[in-house]
């Protein structure tokens, strides 16, 4: 099959060292943030401060995954906002659920 006349000519480009290094850096950051979360889990007292810290660190991780791994940061601005703006509805969902939840009888 390799000698088929219709086989397209493929030029393999060399690895982009800089890009690959950057990807490993992002992986390192994700690992480090997870490690920090672990430390917080066992050193801080349970409360609003701990929870908000977890939420912030989670959003940081999400930002790196979506921005770098999923490449959204480098996409056309229209696509970037088309994906990001609808996630505001999740905040609406949270507010709506909490509001509805307050009307529920306690289990």
């Amino acid at each position, binding site marked *: *099959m390799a000698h088929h006349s219709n*086989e*397209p000519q*493929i*030029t*393999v*480009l*060399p*690895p*982009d060292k800089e*890009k*690959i290094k950057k*990807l*490993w850096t*992002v*992986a390192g950051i*994700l*690992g480090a943030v*997870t490690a920090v*979360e*672990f430390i917080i*889990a*066992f050193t801080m007292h349970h409360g609003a401060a*701990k*929870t908000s810290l*977890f*939420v912030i*660190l*989670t959003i940081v*991780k*999400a930002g790196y*995954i*979506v921005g770098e*791994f*999923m490449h959204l940061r480098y*996409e*056309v601005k*229209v*696509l970037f906002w*088309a*994906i990001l703006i*609808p*996630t505001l*509805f*999740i905040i609406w*969902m*949270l507010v709506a*659920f*909490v509001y509805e*939840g307050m009307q*529920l009888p*306690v*289990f």
Partner: protein
Amino acid sequence: MSHSSAATVSEKSVWDGGSSPMGASYGKLMMWFFLLSDAFTFSGLLITYGLVRSSHPAFEGLPEAFTFSTEYWPVPEKVFEAVPFLHGITLPLVFVGIMTFILIMSSVTMVLAVEAGHRMDRKAVEKWMLWTIIGGITFLSCQAWEWTHFIVGTDTPTMVKDFVNGQWITKEVTGASLKINQYGPQPFADFFFFITGFHGFHVFSGVMFNFLIYYNTVTGVYDRRGHYEMVEKVGLYWHFVDLVWVFVFTFFYLV
């Protein structure tokens, strides 16, 4: 469809689909919007978890004094503290941490496969796809163990009130199911099965897709097609699975 070369596309005028305003192919856009809708599904599950949890009383005592009871919501790090082959040793959240690490690593190998695809490097795509598949299978195996441990339960049973034949009785319970649960209020077990199960099924589907991509790479489908965009699209899905796990890890296990 994807065989159509760039030349035939550029002949069309802008309003005939000659250009893509979002700078991405139809397939890639649809993958993004599917993932957006999937994000809503997972948000629904996690927000409901938070609400049901907050409607139950929390454990007030010292962490050392914690025991399982259906009277209050359990502390997650007291439930998930076992590691395979280390029975009886208390290692809170260590196994979940390992699972998180595995999934992050498989995300890295996936993005390296995408990078290799951009360079038309078939051998490198094969290598990194294989590592991604191995990572996914390892994660699923870990989850299978975690589920088994959760279902079988701890060495010492918990006294649980149950409604049997029209009356309330108290009985010893080990482990959990959708009907009865030793760790705390029943919804805790139900949410565990639904949230980690729904995510696990996404991982399972992802492994299937990854295998398909690997197969097509090996058989030279993408070389003949002239681009490796499918690796990119499935890559988006795989990263999303990792992204969801980051949220599950925080809101189910850490908080």
